[in-house]
């Protein structure tokens, strides 16, 4: 049955694409994790490795783009399949940015290590990156299972990441005001925190892409928050 054979080959190409995206996701997760470890432990060797490994993500993105374009050109996919392919292109672009941000973190390891930093700062940075990494993991798990019911959780975490970033920002400012010698390393740390926060943003983009892939619709904007209190883990309905 040649018809059947063609369909199967096409299916296989689509599957290859999603596997490639997932593998790229795994590499991005690992890269960010190692970059943060290098930062917290002032490990220059690890940082150098991370900087080198970013190329793997660039290659992955190029490969996914090429395969996707060939698929579109040859198979002229419609509806679901087309969304799947477009989704792969978009997600891999976000993951490539995550890799860049991780690389940027690694590049700051040397200047940050010049001055001894307070322990609490690193705990904060670690907390922030744990949130961002959990976000990335959850998002990629949703990509694997297509369980878009879990999207609400990732949205809540988005708010936590912002709150944590704001808190770290303030802490860093106080150190800079205390002692001008802190300004240079703290500025680097500020950028590190910003980079980690942006990794969370890319995870959120990916969630939106997955929502679009699965439903064909753009994700509705987040409902307005009714109060100004911050959430550590998730939102609770207000009660009196």
């Amino acid at each position, binding site marked *: 049955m040649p018809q059947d054979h063609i369909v199967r080959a096409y299916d296989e190409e689509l599957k290859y694409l999603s596997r490639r995206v997932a593998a790229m996701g795994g590499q991005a997760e690992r890269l960010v994790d190692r970059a943060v470890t290098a930062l917290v432990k002032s490990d220059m060797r690890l940082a150098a490795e991370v900087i080198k490994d970013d190329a793997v993500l660039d290659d992955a993105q190029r490969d996914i783009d090429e395969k996707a374009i060939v698929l579109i050109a040859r198979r002229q996919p419609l509806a679901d399949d087309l969304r799947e392919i477009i989704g792969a292109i978009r997600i891999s672009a976000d993951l490539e940015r995550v890799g860049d941000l991780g690389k940027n973190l690694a590049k700051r390891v040397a200047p940050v290590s010049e001055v001894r930093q307070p322990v609490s700062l690193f705990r904060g940075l670690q907390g922030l990156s744990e949130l961002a990494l*959990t976000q990335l993991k959850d998002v990629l798990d949703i990509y694997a299972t297509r369980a878009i019911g879990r999207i609400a959780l990732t949205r809540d975490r988005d708010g936590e990441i912002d709150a944590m970033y704001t808190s770290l920002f303030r802490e860093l400012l106080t150190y800079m005001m205390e002692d001008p010698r802190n300004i240079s390393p703290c500025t680097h740390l500020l950028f590190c925190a910003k980079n980690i926060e942006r990794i969370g943003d890319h995870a959120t983009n990916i969630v939106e892409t997955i929502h679009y892939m699965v439903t064909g619709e753009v994700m509705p904007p987040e409902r307005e928050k009714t109060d100004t209190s911050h*959430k*550590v883990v998730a939102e609770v309905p207000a009660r009196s």
Partner: protein
Amino acid sequence: METPAGKGDSGIAGWLADRMPANGLMFVVAIVAIVLAAVLGTPAGVVVGVFLVAAAAIVPTSRRREKAQIAARALEKTSLGGLSPQNLAEAVGDPLVIFDRQGATVHANAAARKAFGDLPAGMSLLLKFRAPELQDLIQSVLTGQAGEKAVDYVERVPLERVYRVVGASVGEQTGLFLLTFRDQSEARRVDRMRADFIANASHELRTPLASISGFIETLRGPARNDAKARDQFLQIMQDQTARMARLIDDLLSLSRLEMKALPPAGRPVDLQAVVEAVLDALTPLARESGVEVKRDFGHERMQVAGDRDELFQVFENLLENACKYGQSGGRLIVSIRPSASVPGEAEVAVTDFGPGIPAEHIPRITERFYRVDVETSRSRKGTGLGLAIVKHILTRHHSRLSIRSEPGKGATFTAHLPTVRRRN
């Protein structure tokens, strides 16, 4: 991996293929053998495993099973006096995933679902296990290079876990493959715990030690003959040593928690019963702080899977904080109710009417040693580890903590816990 027995002896193979029960038995035995080999990790286990797999391999499966679902059905049919491979897989304590030639899940046992979340039949393992070393492992098992492979896999978030993962094919003709995960977190964490403990403890013990040594100096010098000052200083020193002792206890308890594997599924724990027990235990503290506790428990009794003692610690810490820091409000509300937004989730909330927590501190107060106001916390005998312990325990229970507060009006700490259906 060719074995003499497997070299296409169609006579024997045909004879065996006619005997489905035998085929099933072989298959079951093969799985057991591989699991045993993986779990025991002994050379003998591996040898036995490989031998039995080879034995199972001489039974060719008549059809090629392309689809995971078909394979799953086939698995169901195979039985050993009512013992299906699924039952067997479920009974294995380590996570175990059976998958097909396409890398799609055929069956994931309870331990695997617990450790990695839902792994529905048909889902590609390569999408779920994204770590580069696992990708390599799965690929190489699928392409059938050599018999058995093992890698170490570290999962960092939400909890650090270290697994020794073994991949193998289930015979050569079944078209099925197996991943088993042996949790090695404990061994790895013991090392880390040592380093962490020293770092944390030395940092936090320095302050009380410095103060004690300061007082000793004063006692030997200027205050040598001042009886009144001596008494006062000795009292302070005693307080400081008590604080250090508490700190060490808390640190040990946190480290021990981090070392322990996930809590066993165990018996369901009744939330209301635990909270009542905590309230009983804290009656003296509540009276001493002059706060009145109001219970707001719904009609529905809710149960969660987990460790009762650990959950006790969660509510104890939250209520203790509410008494200590929310004292000025004069009252607390403890409520237990089903979540309005997430089905199957219970919410235990502790609300106080004290000073509350400034917004910028909320994201950070679950960090170790993080205190909003170091002096107040110290004067209340706080070590800054309570909420870190709470967060850790909740994470272990697939649960979350949320905090909301309006400065000046109080704070609400809510634990969100997945409930289990009550068995009647």
